[in-house]
């Protein structure tokens, strides 16, 4: 490994300097932090033949041979560093190895080798961090992220804290994407309990709902997170196991019916109970939400959900900047990060404002019915009272607020 390039960079002073300009633009700086450590180490062991000032400047790399030269390694020292094989013949026997390991080394050499090890190690460390350092840890964004890291569970926040975090998030997203979203924290209205009905004889598998959902909710495009699945089921017994959701042909296919599933916003949601940190809960209007910044990513809720309703950000989400929906809600479609759970929120950013979820609005066939279960004049109530409705896996006692019916 010694022949690999060694990167030497200073410990980032930018951490403590808010508003620090982009580092890559500035002039090279001497390597301060590590350099001092090396100097101290060498001085401690009376090593005086190393010119530390020859260590290259910020961001530059150097070859092992150059490092060796700077450290003025003598023959004997090089041998100790396994540079050359000076062990007796047949060195790679156990005895030879033992000799190697137990060879006494002078303090000076050891100090030099440790210093070189230190430099290499720190170099690796910083090379690992560098790609993100200038933008991610420099300046305002870093400060905002740090404050965001230490914030509390959304439900425990005071109104003041909520306002602050929303301001920070809006600013942070603006720094990252160049667009400033509007993040709402609008709460549930009294007298509202959302319900959903799906007409399996109307759905024709056009997937317009899926497309609208992806766009509305800023879902990751790279892993293709989709809250909605449309299952194509051959006619016959109604059995979800006979259905597939990977069809791509002209629809509707003859002799098939289409069943949409998503989060059912159960009245007894098993996913909420199992969450170890209460990062997910049921809102008073029945929407099961996730606090994305509180989720630790254990995926217990995903195992507990009998309806395949939850989606995990298996990698850093990718949303094209020009497609970002800027009308956001803290518990809804704001941009997520890697390693957190997300799910359908009945488009909380829309429904809390009185609008319809994106899937309902997009459905060209009117197969999707949404409304307030507590309003006796709502469409959902009419469907529940006048149509023959059923729910999936009712035996589990989860009480989904998502019904199916037929014409």
């Amino acid at each position, binding site marked *: 490994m010694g022949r690999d390039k060694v990167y030497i960079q200073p410990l980032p002073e930018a951490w403590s300097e808010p508003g620090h300009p982009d580092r890559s633009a500035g002039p090279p700086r001497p390597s301060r932090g590590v350099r001092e450590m090396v100097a101290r180490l060498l001085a401690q062991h009376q090593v005086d033949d190393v010119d530390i000032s020859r260590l290259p400047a910020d961001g530059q790399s150097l070859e092992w041979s150059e490092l060796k030269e700077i450290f003025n390694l003598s023959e004997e020292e090089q041998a100790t560093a396994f540079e050359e094989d000076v062990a007796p013949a047949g060195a790679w026997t156990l005895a030879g190895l033992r000799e190697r390991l137990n060879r006494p080394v002078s303090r000076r050499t050891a100090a030099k080798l440790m210093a070189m090890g230190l430099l290499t190690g720190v170099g*690796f460390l910083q090379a690992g961090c560098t790609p993100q350092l200038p933008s991610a840890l420099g300046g305002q964004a870093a400060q905002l992220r740090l404050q965001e890291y230490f914030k509390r569970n959304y439900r425990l926040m005071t109104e003041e804290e909520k306002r602050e975090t929303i*301001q920070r998030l809006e600013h942070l997203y603006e720094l990252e994407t160049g667009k400033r979203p509007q993040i709402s924290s609008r709460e549930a209205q009294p007298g509202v309990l959302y319900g959903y009905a799906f007409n399996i004889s109307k759905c024709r598998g056009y997937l317009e709902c899926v497309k609208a959902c992806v766009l509305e909710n800023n879902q990751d495009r790279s892993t293709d997170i989709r809250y909605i699945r449309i299952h194509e089921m051959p006619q016959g017994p109604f059995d979800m196991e006979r259905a597939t959701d990977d069809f791509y042909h002209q629809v509707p296919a003859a002799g098939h019916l289409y069943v949409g599933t998503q989060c059912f916003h159960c009245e007894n949601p098993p996913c909420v109970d199992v969450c170890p940190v209460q990062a997910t809960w049921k809102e008073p209007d029945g929407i099961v939400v996730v606090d994305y910044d509180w989720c630790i990513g254990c995926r217990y809720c995903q195992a507990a959900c009998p309806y395949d309703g939850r989606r995990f950000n298996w990698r850093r989400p990718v949303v094209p900047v020009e497609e970002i929906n800027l009308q956001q809600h803290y518990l809804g479609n704001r941009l997520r990060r*890697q390693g957190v759970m997300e799910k359908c929120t009945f488009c909380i950013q829309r429904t809390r404002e009185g609008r319809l979820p994106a899937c309902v609005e997009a459905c060209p066939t009117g197969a999707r019915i949404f409304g*307030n279960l507590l309003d006796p004049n709502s469409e959902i109530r009419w469907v529940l009272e006048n149509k023959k409705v059923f729910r999936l896996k009712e035996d589990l006692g989860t009480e989904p607020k998502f019904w199916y019916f037929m014409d």
Partner: protein
Amino acid sequence: MRWVNLRVRAAVLWLAGLVAVGLVAGACVQSFGGVPVWVEGAESRPAEPDPPVVAPPADGQASASVSSLPYLALEDYLPLVDGATQEPVEGVFVRTRREELVSYPCSTCHTEPVDALKQASQAEGRLAHWDVALDHADQTVLTCTTCHNVDPNTSDVDTLRTLTGGSVSFDASYQLCAQCHADAYEEWVGGAHGKRVGGWAPPRVIQSCVECHNPHQPQWDIRWPAMRPQQIGREDRTMSPFPKTQREARPGSR
């Protein structure tokens, strides 16, 4: 003790340990400071504006009830009137249709009975309503004149015609549909059929039948889905730790 006696071992340990710590710490820093959004051309970022000092007012939070009215500001709608009773159905409105019709009012052209108009246009080599092909039920059951008033001498051509010869505004065409599709009409009024305009909250404004169903050809399209099936997770990722993001175009896609 032995720590005083520095050995090569110590140097090697240093190195290995630091490499390990560096790798994990580097990745930690990256994942902590992760940018959640893909930025095309990240270098062209706007200058960082100062964070706003004043908190934005939490408007709208004071109003306790939700209404669809803000989303209906640009819509025209009338109360739904039941065709049989001619009574408005309480709390249900239907989006109007007349202003969207292309050749309306009909009486602009239909000044004479249809047969006379037909002869005149054939003589001049003009085609009228050439884009209308009637494919709604059977020709023996339903023709143009089943629903349209065509004779200005005996009826108002700017309205639709019921089976019993009554006239119905183009804005209330659902009354016509309801003559045959009584079940669908009932579900439409109730809420199990059709689509809403605006939001879920009252007032309830619904789309008229003809906004989804072409009355001349009420059948639905057979078409391609709006999205391809989800790929990730179905592919075998055993060998490569990184998923394929570029997908092959499938044959047969539009």
